[in-house]
């Protein structure tokens, strides 16, 4: 059945002696924005990294597009159409903005339409395209990281806390950007900022202490203040 784009079955991940994920089970359907909420240390980043193959799942399975990618090499997973925007953005500061984008293309050649679209979504990228990426501001780097993820068509984009350290104005602008991106692909977004997540997400899963504590449609969580309070006190930092 290909109704789910991504499925995690009871995934356990250890780092050294420490058990981080204690059995994460998650399904992500194709299309839309899906949010993974949780506080620091809950295992959000670990989940993304495990999906991406950067950390190896000790137990359990990860199925992407009907294909078992549990032990696969990161590069192979990327080639299947998965993009990863890490928390630290992964920008290559010694390369120019354009070189950063070029690395995200399969052959080194740009699809001009998509490049223009990226420029439209992120004007700063066009402006500084020949400058060294290290000279960009924090917000601009985040834009570049996201632009890199969409410069070619992907099936799934994993994004780790994109709003961290950004001003409210930029965050508001990002909501529109993400909504537009989600029209053509699937986004799995990891966040601590509930308000940002709520305005964006179609479905939400809450991870706490390496396990999924709740999952369901964003609308129902948004409507249920009692549930929010319970989960909020459990896991969330609300940002204004």
């Amino acid at each position, binding site marked *: 059945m290909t109704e789910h784009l991504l499925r995690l079955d009871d995934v356990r991940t250890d780092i050294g002696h420490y058990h981080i994920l204690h059995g994460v089970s998650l399904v992500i359907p194709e299309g839309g924005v899906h949010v993974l909420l949780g506080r620091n240390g809950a295992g959000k980043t670990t989940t993304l990294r495990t999906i*991406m193959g*950067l950390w190896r799942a000790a137990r359990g399975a990860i199925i992407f597009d009907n294909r078992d990618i549990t032990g696969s*090499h*990161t*590069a192979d997973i*990327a*080639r299947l159409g998965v*993009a*990863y925007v*890490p928390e630290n953005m*992964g920008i*290559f*500061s*010694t*390369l120019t903005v354009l*070189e950063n984008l*070029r*690395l*995200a293309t*399969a052959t*080194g050649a740009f699809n001009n339409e998509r490049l223009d679209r990226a420029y439209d979504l992120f004007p*700063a990228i066009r402006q*500084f395209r020949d*400058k*060294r990426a*290290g*000279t*960009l*501001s924090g*917000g*601009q780097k985040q834009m570049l990281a996201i632009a*890199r993820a969409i410069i070619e068509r992907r099936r799934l984009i994993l994004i780790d806390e994109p709003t961290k350290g950004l001003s409210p104005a930029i965050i508001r602008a990002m909501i529109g950007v993400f909504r537009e991106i989600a029209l053509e692909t699937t986004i799995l977004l990891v966040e601590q900022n509930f308000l940002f997540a709520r305005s964006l997400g179609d479905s939400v899963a809450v991870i706490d202490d390496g396990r999924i504590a709740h999952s369901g449609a964003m609308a129902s969580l948004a409507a249920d203040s009692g549930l929010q309070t319970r989960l909020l006190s459990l896991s969330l930092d609300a940002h204004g």
Partner: protein
Amino acid sequence: MAEAPTSDSLPWYRALANVNWLPAALALAAFAAIGSPATWVTLTVAGLAMGMMIFLMASGLSLVFGLMDVLNFGHSAFVTFGAFIAATVLARLAGWNTADTPFLSVVALLLAIGAAALFGLVAGWFFERVIIRPVYQDHLRQILVTIGALIVAQELVMVFWGGSPVSVPRPLILSGSLVFGDISIEIYRIFAVILGLIVYVGMHLGLNRTRIGLLVRAGVENREMVEALGFRIDRLFIGVFMVGSALAALGGAMWAGYETLIAPDLGSEVLVLVFIVVIIGGLGSVEGSLIGALLVGLTNNYVAFLMPKLALASTMILMVLVLIWRPLGLKPAAKG
């Protein structure tokens, strides 16, 4: 959002403060100290030549470390073998190395250098697969294993060539000096500088104009992200390792012609120099290695003339001074 000032858009006087100018600044300071132009020219050319040879040996190590986080103490073994192989080829082809056959002597030279570089490529491949690959992530074991490899390699040199120093017949076309009035410049040194420049330009173009070069530069900075973009960087690594080893062997071959007398512990002797250059230059940076190597070469020669007692220690003192100013080296590319 304000744009942070970058070196791409600095006013000209800030751009001058760039570390790229350090070797020139050093040469200028030395001129003030030495006084005599003839002596200064000789020393400077000697320093540049020595620097270029060390650059050949060091650049590979710096890239390998920057890209794959692997420190290869056995790197200098390629230098030693390169030197001895070139010496052997030149000795065997001594008949070609006469004044009447300039063409043949050039061929002999190219064969000697080529043999060294070829050895570096092949041995580099073997070394990476057998010695390095099993201990990728483990820094401690890497250090230990590559030191073991260094010891074994040194012993092997003695097995094949004996324990005593070997003299290297310098190619005739590279012997002698150019004389301009008071100033005499050894032809071999000019050759070394030119060769070094060619290699540097080649590496610069390769890194900045090709897709593979792009991958290497990105990988030096953030290996994981390059993989997350879909590239098997471990496959890239073996290529870089091979090239780095070939360059080291090439450096060794040039060094053999420079010193004309080589001993099996050549590798260990230059190991420290190479490390100092990599430290000064910054890990993962070819430009850094060049600047560091030139600084080391120049310092060595200037100090040997001005303050002979300090000569041996001068390189180390240089390293300490640079580290105090820039703890990660002059132009580090890798996170360090």
